[in-house]
């Protein structure tokens, strides 16, 4: 088993006067998925953004493989994939073109790999349509295809099942399971429980301060 592990220790973060994260801590290792739950405003998205280095905590530290992520942020970023609320896609490009440019900046990618990833999320029928013509669920599926193409150990997913139908929600669970099976780890912020296998699943609830 690899030494992939993400940990947070006593993380504090303020947004103006609001103390959003109050001494948050967790530890996730390879093959594990941590589901963050909590009411709106509890700090799930903030914690995910802090964990991926987009937000700076005022106290505590986030470590990746035992080292503070700030020590080499570029190297850390090269090993993570983050999906926020909105799928990061250009409306005037097709789903296939989006994946080519989005994933292509990180790693060499063949057209066949993109085809397979889109096929995996049920995107054969709309892969060559401009993203602005796709439904919200199809955009989310295209973003999930991008996620699987990254080949990185750490997934940080903010509400990954938003806009997805029942089958799509099942697909998210399958993809996370496959990722954990491949030795990766995931941190997800969710309102509704993800359908992932119980093995390696951890839960943490954030509460309003």
């Amino acid at each position: 088993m690899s030494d992939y592990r993400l940990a947070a220790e006593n993380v504090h973060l303020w947004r103006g006067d609001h103390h959003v994260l109050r001494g948050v801590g967790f530890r996730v290792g390879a093959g594990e998925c941590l589901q963050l739950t909590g009411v709106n405003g509890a700090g799930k998205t903030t914690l995910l953004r802090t964990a991926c280095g987009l937000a700076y905590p005022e106290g505590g530290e986030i470590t990746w493989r035992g080292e503070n992520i700030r020590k080499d942020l570029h190297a850390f970023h090269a090993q993570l994939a983050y999906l926020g609320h909105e799928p990061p896609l250009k409306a005037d490009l097709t789903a296939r073109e989006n994946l080519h440019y989005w994933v292509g900046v990180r790693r060499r990618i063949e057209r066949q790999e993109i085809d397979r990833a889109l096929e995996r999320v049920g995107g054969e029928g709309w892969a060559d349509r401009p993203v602005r013509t796709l439904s919200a669920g199809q955009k989310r599926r295209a973003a999930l295809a991008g996620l699987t193409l990254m080949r990185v150990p750490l997934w940080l997913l903010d509400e990954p099942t938003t806009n997805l139908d029942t089958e799509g929600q099942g697909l998210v669970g399958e993809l996370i399971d496959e990722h954990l099976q491949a030795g990766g780890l995931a941190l997800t912020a969710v309102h509704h429980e993800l359908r992932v296998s119980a093995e390696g699943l951890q839960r943490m609830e954030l509460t309003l301060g």
Partner: protein
Amino acid sequence: MRAEWQISDTGSAVPALTAARLMVARDLKLAFRKRSQLVQPLAFFAIITTLFPLGVSPELPVLRPMAAGVVWAAALLSSLLALELLFRDDAQDGTLEQYALSGRSLTWLLAAKTATHWLLTGLPLALMAPLAGMALGAPAAAVPGIVGSVAVGTVALSLIGSIGAGLTLGIRRSGALLSLLTLPLEIPVLIFGARAMELAIDGAAYGVPMRFLGALAVLGLTLAPLAAAAAVRINLE
């Protein structure tokens, strides 16, 4: 369940230059699919330089001494018009955030975006400037000087503008603030650019102001992408 993919620490990471090339290719493709945004600064430049003789005088001897100033002021304002969009769309749809998290140098990627901005605004302006100049009385012999001064000067304008675009990223309707931030920094470019063009129109040697323009472009090239990347990171937080 069998995993369908392999995780890799380094994978087949692409070199920074390849990532930058992809960024340029993407932005060019997007620009040609949204042609209205592409045409807007060029139309603005054409309108200013066309309206000016109507408001002042149709006599070429009257217009000729003002040609360099008019062409340069129009080029600067046109370049500024397109700057607001430099990072805004990418910030709104989340793709800028993905580039910041890509593990590739954001400085490189933003430098590539700025280069594309120049290709789509600065270069066409440089190619249009001789037409505007000649309509204002510039001789045909001045064409290389006119093209050269606008081409090199707009490189500096795009680079300086990228810092302002990064700093104002999180602000709605940032156009006015962007102008306030960048115009003072762009004045030296306007001065040396207009001077080089003026000398070219007069048939004199314009090497000295062109060297200053070149120096400003090189200074921008070394500092602006770093500053723009830092500004973007702050705004992504």
